[in-house]
């Protein structure tokens, strides 16, 4: 009905296949590529990763615009000048946004959800954050997790033991909610 009453007013072409039809057909080829790449980290990220191995989060400051950012980069993309003032940042931060993910990339269900988040590390300019995971949270349902994780909440990095660190972003296991302490 839509075809006759709406543009382009001609039969649209295409042969949809259901999953079963796809599986039953003989005429298909498959190819599993072997694609391997070895990326150089670049000068800035290499130093950042080394910092992680030491248990520290580094950022850089641009002398021109004054922004302090992480992850560090070799040049300020706004001023287009080299960035070489390295700053050791705190291991605490604030949750800018988070999500509770119940599926893998190929849409298989996850029993225990992952909680990706953008963490704004203390000591950086406003709205500067990077991707990581939130952990140390009880429960699996959306409601349970939302009771413990909120936008704007303070978090602290939880590290792998020094011997297990590799100089990778995963040297931080996750960021955990900071429990409120009584003021001194």
């Amino acid at each position, binding site marked *: 009905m*839509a075809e006759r009453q*709406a543009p*382009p007013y001609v039969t649209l072409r295409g042969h*949809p296949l259901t999953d079963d039809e796809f599986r039953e057909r003989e005429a298909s080829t498959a190819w599993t590529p072997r694609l391997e790449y070895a990326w150089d980290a670049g000068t800035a990220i290499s130093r950042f990763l080394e910092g992680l191995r030491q248990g520290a989060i580094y950022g850089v400051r641009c002398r021109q615009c004054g922004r302090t950012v992480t992850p560090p980069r070799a040049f300020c993309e706004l001023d287009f000048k080299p960035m070489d003032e390295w700053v050791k940042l705190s291991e605490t931060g604030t949750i*800018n946004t*988070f999500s509770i993910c119940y599926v893998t990339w190929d849409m298989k269900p996850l029993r225990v959800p992952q909680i990706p988040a953008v963490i704004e590390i203390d000591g950086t300019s406003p709205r500067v954050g990077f991707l*990581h995971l939130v952990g140390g949270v009880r429960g699996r349902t959306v409601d349970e997790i939302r009771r413990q994780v909120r936008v704007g909440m303070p978090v602290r990095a939880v590290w792998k033991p020094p011997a297990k660190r590799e100089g990778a972003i995963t040297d931080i296991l996750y960021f955990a909610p900071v429990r409120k302490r009584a003021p001194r």
Partner: protein
Amino acid sequence: MSLIKRKPQRRVAIVGAGLSLFMRRALDTGKELSYYAASQALDAAGVRRKDIQAVVMATAPDAFDGVHMKGEWLLDGAGGVGKPYLRAYVGGGSGVFSIISGWMMVASGLFDLVLVVAEEKMSSCQPHPQGAFLTIFDHIIERPLGPNLLWIFSLEQQRYMAAYGIQNEDIALVSVKNKHNALAHPAAQVAAQLTVKDVLDSEVVAWPVHRLMVSPISDGAAAVVLASEHVAQRLADHPIWIQGVGWCLDTSYWGNRDLAYPRYVEQAARMAYEMAGITEPRRQIHVAEPYDPFAYKELHHLEGLQLADRGKAPDDLARGRFDRGGELPSCPSGGLMGVGNPIAAAGLMKICELFWQLRGEAGTRQVAGNPERGLAQAWGDLMQVGTVAVLGVR
């Protein structure tokens, strides 16, 4: 501040459009899908492949097809053999960028008749096309965390909701509107009559995103024929003019941006508005096709396009402003949420929709009031690129 050096002298019009079906999995190859859409656009324009002087192809990640340099592989289906053929690629923004690239070709004076094709065949990618997106993340500081595509959308949606106090019920209304609109679209893959409750009852994939808030994996193609002014006058009674185009790419450091507002969409829109001489978009744009790969994105983008106040698009939606019968119909086609999302083809599908709407040929999808100017927008990369085209009857 001016975003263009000067207004272009040469005018460019759309004189024909074509589509294939949008399907979850097509038997047809990418070349065949391109051919369906391209040949239909040529027929509609009343021209033949030999008249075409150049071809632009838009198609998104090569990883979907498992073919390196897939632009080359697809070129025969797009009518490119023996011609100047070029593939422009800005991730999901490619669908609307394809027409910008075609516009450049004609507005430069180099060509008078150009074919623009956008194609996507996502289904070849096993076990799931989402796998193609695993490699969009920074290889050193993001991929080791095991991210998947849903993360970036859910993180952005959550930021948008938290920044403005928006509820999931407000967002679910986009799915309802677009899937309903798509019932009248012949290419539609996922049209449906739903309620907000249906949407929120669907499983949570990555909170706050529910399954019915996500556009599907699709195979499909779209095409348009562009012509210079004197050729357009000869070919078509009602050519639709490309009045303005804009595009903008933000930094790849997406964690260093405020995700609540797509400033790159605003920049792209401002560039297009400047070219089109638009100073009051809310009054001067009569129909909109913003990019809606996820329900919340339509709202997010409408705000970036200056068609709604920041954080207020959900209110406008709730009171019917964006319905097909409302003050500013948005996604009258049914959008990606209703018609389908073969990545690059989806953006060009929106252009096709505006072409028909502005000619009063949209049949059961027609928005009332003789719209004279429309806007299509696409988005892509790592929440970075905005591509905008303003079309009009003059």
